């Protein structure tokens, strides 16, 4: 199935603005993001040492924010748009 990923702010420097991916059915959110880093590199940008998506990364699927604890098992559907954004904290 086809999904796409939109990156914002400094994530665009690593992944570009939009990536269209063809992934197997039963693809989870982390699977899709691993596909992204397999294609574009920079896995350390998104993943902890233990392979989980970093908690502070804001992740949305289909316009809905996914809490850190709901990400690992989230199954994607055909046409899903994933948004990834690294919140900034300076002032």
């Amino acid at each position: 199935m086809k999904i796409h990923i939109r990156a914002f702010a400094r994530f665009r420097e690593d992944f570009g603005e939009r990536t269209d991916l063809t992934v197997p059915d039963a693809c989870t959110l982390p699977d899709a993001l691993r596909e992204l880093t397999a294609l574009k590199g920079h896995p350390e940008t998104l993943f902890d040492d233990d392979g989980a998506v970093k908690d502070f990364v804001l992740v949305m699927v289909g316009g809905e924010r996914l809490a850190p604890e709901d990400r690992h098992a989230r199954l994607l559907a055909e046409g899903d748009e994933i948004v990834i954004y690294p919140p900034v904290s300076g002032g």
Partner: protein
Amino acid sequence: MPAGDGNQEQVSEGRYARQEMIFGAAGQEALAAATVVIAGAGGLGSPAATYLAAAGVGRLVLVDFDTVALSNLNRQFLHGDADIGTPKVASAARRLRALNREIEVVPVGAKITEENVAAIVQGADAVVDALDSFAPRMVLNEAAVKGRIPLMHGAISGFYGQATTVLPGKSACLRCIFPSEPPKETFPALGPTAGVIGSIQAGEVIKYLTGGPLLTGRLLLWNGAEASCDVLPAPRDPACPVCGHLPVTTEETSR
């Protein structure tokens, strides 16, 4: 009379004449009657406080514990070379009073903590989050939610910035949107990025006080590297440990 001016309407020359064209004398009175707390007198606090002072917000409470360093001056225009080593709130208050003698500026040289935050925001009509790391932001967010005080959030790093407005109980709070804090970093900082975001925060305060649609339930992302802007939906989290207990309302208007 110079040629061409014959048909012009008479224009008031008062300090606030041009903005009263937007919200009238009643709006100006609302600004003059307001107390706004600005947490942080740095990159975001400089534009936010400057525009709120110039607009005639009656009482500005500036909170910052830091002293001015040379590396602040590329963006923190409330301070200058002569202020290095002195409290930021002192130079900021001096500049703002020089800008508008009709307002009251209250400098508070303190770090925001769980112990002092309730007293700092007490009586405020709005709070501007112009802080530079997430931990004190979350302390401020919690106090704003407890006091039901609107919070205008902004943050920057390099060319990137974000902003949202929190109306406690009506729209997402910072904990709803950012359940997990980004790591503390020595962030790159550029004046124009702080200028964009700090100006958005000041505009949100002014609209809240005078009436107008707000940046609630949405996270505005400014990308100065591309000169582009995106808005992500940011709904309330019913399980939010900070504001989840407040009843859900759909009303997201200013007061």
